[in-house]
């Protein structure tokens, strides 16, 4: 009996062993092949999959089959009938149940030894501590908002040393997948080393929005009719009640209104699924695209965790519209990124008031920021404009910045103002790392450097 368990477990890791047990030339500098590595991957590496939809289902399956044993998955959605064509872990009787829970259960049933903890909630509902637990965060999401949120959380753990080099042990790697019809991307984000989501936010195309007056007066397409019902007619009829795209009754109402309008203007093509598509900005998902992108993400996750090969550097695009095209692009980090950048280090005495801090920024050689407004965490410490906010924040000017920053030895503030000299002044927004002298661990390193 023991014999047979043993042989089945070794046959399961047979392919993985070829990667993990043998030395190679294209491996990471930290790669230490051996059974210990395989065991450590199983035992210590904890991976969070964000999203249990089209990509999430694939990711959980791929990661479980890649030898990872400790997985968690977070998703706020419940299963809908329309998911079943590609979200293969779900069955008809699962409709209405939480995606995360069903996905976790199904993968655990099929892959023995893997433990998946589901979280049926919004990503914002979790404390930051929750996210710090994971070795790697893998994203299978469909929105900019959610990516931006997780990116900010992961980059929030990053610390820099006094030379502005990222501290490796505070880096929280992310692997991000995304698909849209026949197209997809997979990217590896090592905060502080490779560009974060916010460094390359410009990659996202602008959203297509129709002019309201076109919707109201001169609709020409089915989408115009749907947006009319969704944006104008809804408010007209349901005063004060906001439209919920996840409520099927609301969607049905919009569909019927859109159909009436289409008939009035002699426009063809309004259907329930198009209504959903337009209102929720849905592009038909293709199972194979999800499978390909997920496979790339799972492989990168394995490479990151084990070092068995160099990781993707750093952005893969896949296009299956005509034949097949993939390309890897090495995007560059925005050194001044507000989310992953180090910020400019400023050392201050604990007695320095907000007013004199603002004055110092004007003379600081790296900043030269005049008329700065200052924000710390969620608090606006001083706002130069408009007058109502200036008045509300003016009393802070005479207080020590140390007190305003909750008496922490170090913290991040953001400043906006006019940077530069003479005629070349430009409005700017900068991240500053403020360290107070004589508080916490800062003094030791300073003394050592100065002595």
């Amino acid at each position: 009996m023991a014999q047979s368990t043993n042989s089945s477990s070794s046959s399961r890791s047979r392919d993985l062993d070829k990667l993990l047990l043998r030395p190679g030339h294209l491996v990471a500098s930290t790669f230490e092949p051996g059974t210990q590595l395989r065991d450590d991957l199983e035992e210590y590496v904890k991976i969070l999959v964000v999203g249990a939809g089209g990509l999430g289902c694939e990711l959980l399956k791929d990661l479980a089959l890649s030898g990872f044993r400790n997985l968690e998955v977070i998703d706020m959605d419940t299963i809908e009938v329309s998911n079943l064509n590609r979200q293969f872990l779900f069955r008809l009787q699962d409709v209405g149940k939480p995606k995360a829970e069903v996905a976790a259960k199904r993968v655990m049933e099929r892959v023995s030894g893997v433990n998946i903890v589901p979280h049926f909630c919004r990503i914002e509902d979790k404390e930051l501590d929750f996210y710090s637990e994971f070795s790697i965060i893998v994203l299978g999401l469909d929105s900019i908002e959610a990516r931006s949120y997780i990116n900010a959380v992961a980059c929030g753990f990053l610390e820099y040393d006094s030379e502005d080099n990222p501290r490796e042990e505070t880096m929280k790697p992310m692997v991000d997948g995304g698909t849209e019809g026949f197209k997809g991307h997979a990217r590896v984000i090592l905060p502080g080393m490779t560009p974060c989501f916010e460094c390359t936010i410009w990659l996202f195309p602008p959203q297509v929005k129709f002019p309201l007056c076109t919707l109201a007066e001169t609709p020409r397409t089915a989408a115009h009719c749907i947006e009319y019902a969704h944006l104008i007619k809804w408010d007209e009829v349901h005063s004060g009640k906001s439209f919920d795209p996840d409520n099927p009754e609301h969607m049905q109402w919009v569909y019927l209104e859109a159909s009436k309008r289409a008939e009035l203007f002699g426009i063809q093509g309004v259907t329930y699924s198009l209504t959903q598509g337009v209102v929720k900005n849905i592009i038909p998902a293709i199972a194979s695209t999800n499978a390909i992108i997920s496979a790339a993400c799972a492989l990168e996750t394995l490479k990151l965790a084990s070092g068995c090969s160099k990781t993707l550097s750093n952005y893969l695009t896949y296009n299956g519209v005509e034949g097949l095209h993939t390309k890897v692009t090495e995007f560059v980090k925005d050194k001044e990124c507000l989310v992953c950048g180090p910020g400019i280090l400023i050392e201050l005495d604990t007695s320095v008031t907000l007013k004199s801090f603002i004055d110092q920024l004007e003379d600081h050689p790296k900043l030269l920021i005049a008329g700065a407004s200052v924000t710390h965490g969620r608090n606006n410490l001083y706002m130069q404009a408009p007058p109502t906010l200036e008045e509300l924040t003016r009393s802070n000017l005479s207080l020590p910045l140390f007190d305003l920053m909750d008496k922490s030895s170090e913290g991040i503030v953001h400043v906006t103002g006019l940077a530069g000299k003479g005629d070349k002044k430009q409005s700017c927004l900068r991240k500053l790392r403020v360290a107070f002298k004589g508080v916490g661990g800062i003094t030791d390193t300073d003394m050592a450097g100065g002595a």
Partner: protein
Amino acid sequence: MIRLFKVKEKQREIAENSNGMPPTKKQSPGELRLNKDISELNLPKTCSIKFPNGKDDLMNFEVTVKPDEGYYLGGKFTFTFQIATIYPHEAPKVKCRERVYHPNIDLDGNVCLNILREDWKPVLNINTVIYGLYHLFTEPNHEDPLNSEAAAVLRDNPQQFGTNVKRAMGGGHIGQTAFSRCM
């Protein structure tokens, strides 16, 4: 390349040293960008801004426009602004709080201003939008109507349009529709 197991040790260390202090919540990049827009506002005398939720929530605010010329001279109009966390990728959501007789504003307060929808670009800012709103009152446009009745009157009988605007601003009726008093 990351050293995952070093990461593991460090995380244990952080957890042990955290003294139960939760990490501070930060502003999203969108909020930071909005802060910048707000701190650099340079409003015309005809416009003012209010933050009903206090100085630390700038994502929801109200802008009051008091036109100093044109049909709407003497009126006072309030717009609510809702800013998404992914601002400036997405335009501000703007609605007029009063029911106003205007070719480009419908009876529910929806505003037809190109830079709020099809022509929004991340390089635009809150100042641009407020100037755009002000512009709507000095130069109402009958070509892109949201209120087609008002637009038709403006096109065919500007004098009548002026009379209607005055009546509506005084809280009167135009046809069957009652308007908000906004003088």
